């Protein structure tokens, strides 16, 4: 579990009075791992034709993406300091037209994943071996386009596409029959279920498949905890879009440093 990135997220949100802290804490470990160990990119040529694509379909978790892009050199200190301000480029949902390293402008749920499917198809048409990874929310899986895309990806044999579902239990609050594994299997995907906060489990999941350009697509169901790392943020209560007070920020940082 990466505490430093979580502290950065909390500070950003506190300063700008905008952001989804628990959703970002839920996915930050996975995104960090992707940029450290999986995705191929070139900071000198961010839009290189050879890059791998990462699309954050659950755009409201973008504070996690921003701190990771900052850690790996895509974004500057100034960018993070001006998060959600008119003087900066980073907002409460990511805008690909102004943020280096952001591949899709997401926010309205159910768009990023089918767009990633299109990227995977475009690459396959051109026989390019770039990999495409989309991270989506379990609540987002209520959107019909997720299942349209899942169905198509299997039929077009887009093994160069990997979906990661942030399975933190948001969906089951509304629809308790939360059998995501069976659903993805029924749509023909290889399914890998892991603890999304365990570096070893994330790593092992990516060792289990290659991104075959003509193969079965893979989905990693990451059993995450919304708000992971801070006791009073964890779960599905009031903190979804709540901004911490000064005292609460101090407590968040305290718990994360323990």
């Amino acid at each position, binding site marked *: 579990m990466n505490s430093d990135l979580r502290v950065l997220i909390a500070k950003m949100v506190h300063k700008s009075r905008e952001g989804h802290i628990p959703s970002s804490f839920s996915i930050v470990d996975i995104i960090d791992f992707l940029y450290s160990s999986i995705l191929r990119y070139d900071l000198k040529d961010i839009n290189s034709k050879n890059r791998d694509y990462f699309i954050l379909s659950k755009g409201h978790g973008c504070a996690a993406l921003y701190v990771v892009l900052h850690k790996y050199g895509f974004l500057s200190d100034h960018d993070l300091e001006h998060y959600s301000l008119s003087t900066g480029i980073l907002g409460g949902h990511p805008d690909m037209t102004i943020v280096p390293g952001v591949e899709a402008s997401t926010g309205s749920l159910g768009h990023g994943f*089918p767009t990633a*499917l299109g990227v995977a*198809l*475009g*690459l396959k*048409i051109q026989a390019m071996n770039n990999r495409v990874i989309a991270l989506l929310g379990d609540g987002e899986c209520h959107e019909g386009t997720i299942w349209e895309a899942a169905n*198509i990806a299997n039929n077009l044999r887009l093994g160069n596409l990997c979906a990661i579902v942030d399975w933190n239990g948001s969906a089951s609050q509304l629809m308790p029959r939360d059998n995501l594994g069976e659903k993805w299997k029924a749509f023909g995907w290889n399914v890998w279920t892991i603890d999304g906060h365990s570096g070893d489990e994330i790593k092992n999941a990516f060792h289990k498949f290659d991104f075959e350009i003509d193969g079965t697509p893979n989905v990693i169901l990451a059993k995450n905890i919304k708000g992971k790392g801070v006791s009073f943020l964890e779960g599905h209560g009031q903190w979804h879009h709540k901004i911490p007070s000064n005292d609460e920020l101090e407590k968040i940082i305290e718990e994360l440093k323990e």
Partner: protein
Amino acid sequence: MKNLRQEFADTMIEIGLEDTRLVVMVGDISHGILKGFAQNCSGRYFNIGICEPTIVNMAAGIRKTGLIPVVHTIAPFIVERAYEQIKLDFGYQRLSGNFITVGGAFDYAQLGCSHHCYADISLMCHIENSQVMMPGSAEEFRTLFRQAYSEEKINYFKLTENPHGIELKNEIVVGRGVKIIEGGDITLVAAGPQLRNAIFAAEKLKKDGWSAEVLYYHTLKPFDGELLVDSVEKTRNMITIEELSSHDGLFNLCLRYLNGKVDFNSSQIAIDGFVHGYGTYQELCEKVGLTPDNIYQKALRMLK
């Protein structure tokens, strides 16, 4: 007279062979006539199925990899059902692509209002960086598509099943209106297939001694306002003839360009709401007043 949908299929082959970036995606229609493209441009034709929002998303993704998507299905299913995908994934993300529809406004006259689409032109005009075209002949489609398809624009082509049958003598250029008949008493402005009715009405008016100027628009965005202003400054009378929503179509476009420039009388023949019932395209045109006689009567009232 060549059918526009067949011209679409033929043009895809022609350009697809020249430009290997062209990818055609359909929502389970026109697959018969697109067999030629599928065979000639192997690996770049996809009948994705009946899932229009996802097709539009996919097209945006395909564009991100450098290819040029063409999305084709029935007008309401792309423009109205998948509008958010067009707005966000193409408009907001500043991606370019091509959308080619059939069925609007009520070309599927026997299938009922679920298959009608009156507001597509208006909706597509709202999208930043769009070019919006409703060609009235096969030649117009072929020419406009060739000019526009690889531009960094969101191109919308609404294909009619009822071409106007008029051979344009002027050059066909995206964004340029066409003066079909020169006149001095009233300006009849038509878009797409309604050019035919406008010309018939002008001929009727001529028999009564009135001289109608007929302007034709195959492109609604960008709109050739100069041609319109020049004409209405002269005639001071205008009627728009459009198989589009009366709430935001050709008439509103014209008003925007004329406002503050000319004092003039105006009237609109358009679609005011669901055109319930069934029948032929011609019968539904009659139902909403898109006939030469109605244009003629409205013009007479204005002129007298």
